């Protein structure tokens, strides 16, 4: 039976640009991130935070296949970049409204394969206007090297912050 371990919990009492989990143990089979985030600055169609593995800020280390919508016409595609996995409401969205992001990183600790993450992320709002809401599903291949994932950072981006009360949880799952 699968067993979950709560590796880390970060609840922001003040705005912060970055949340980092370092020295992640390799003793689990999979990792799962659950994040409730909101961006401190304005912007349409939500804000895409960076999700960095092992500290890499090189966009070329990340390949993404995504399906997204912020209008009535979804789009899909492939692109590089470290900021494709998630979406969150900006200060242009309804007050007190946070996004919901779940990221699975299976088999994260092996040293033979590139690592792939699968994310589902929503930025809700009380608006039907185009680009005042956003949805995102993304498969991200981190192919800098085949090292185990030992560090994950989430960066709000644009020099701005995750607002206070944003929360970030990292779980390790042992067993199928």
């Amino acid at each position, binding site marked *: 039976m699968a067993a979950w371990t709560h590796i880390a919990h970060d609840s922001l009492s003040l705005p912060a640009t970055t949340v980092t989990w370092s020295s992640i143990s390799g003793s689990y089979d999979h990792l799962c991130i659950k994040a409730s985030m909101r961006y401190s600055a304005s912007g349409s169609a939500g804000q895409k935070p960076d999700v960095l593995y092992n500290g890499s800020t090189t966009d070329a280390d990340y390949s993404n296949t995504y399906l997204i919508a912020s209008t*009535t016409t979804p789009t899909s595609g492939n692109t590089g970049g470290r900021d494709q996995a998630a979406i969150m409401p900006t200060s242009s969205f309804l007050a007190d409204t946070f996004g919901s992001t779940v990221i699975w990183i299976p088999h994260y600790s092996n040293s033979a394969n590139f690592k792939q993450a699968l994310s589902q992320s929503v930025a809700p709002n009380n608006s039907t206007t185009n680009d005042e809401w956003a949805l995102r599903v993304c498969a991200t291949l981190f192919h800098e090297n085949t090292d185990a994932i030992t560090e994950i950072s989430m960066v709000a981006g644009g020099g701005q912050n995750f607002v206070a009360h944003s929360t970030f949880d990292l779980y390790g799952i042992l067993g199928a």
Partner: protein
Amino acid sequence: MAVIEAIATTYLEADAASVTFSSLGSYEHLQLRMSVRTDRFEHDMVRINFNSDTGANYSRHYMRGYASTPQAGADTAQNYSRGGWIPGADMDAADYGTTIVDILDYKDDGNKNTTLNWLVGAATDGNVYLVSGLWDNTDDVTSIVLVPHNGSNFVRGSEFTLYGIQE
């Protein structure tokens, strides 16, 4: 205590008009997992209401994979949060749809509206959805009621499990 616990499971031995979870415990996050079907003559959806609030305080945005043309859309001022396709009476009797809903930070001391992150699939009917739900209310979630959107009942054999995930 385990990090993820099944708070409650409801397995329908007979058709039921609604399913209620009213003891949500004290966790960081909730997750609903459903295998569900309704008695509507065709496909249906699941509605969620929190804390018995049936006012026009809910919004949803969806992205739908259907045939070769994906779709998306939005609804505001709704009286419920609703997901996507689940099978109805026109589908094979053994066909139940799968729905998973993450509800993060459902107890947040009044700082956040409640956000739902729905993933819904009904393979034989050819639909898959990612849906956001917004309950425009910063109260802690203390109860969850599930009802069919159009049908009268969830049918026998539907199963609903609410999980709590620890901080």
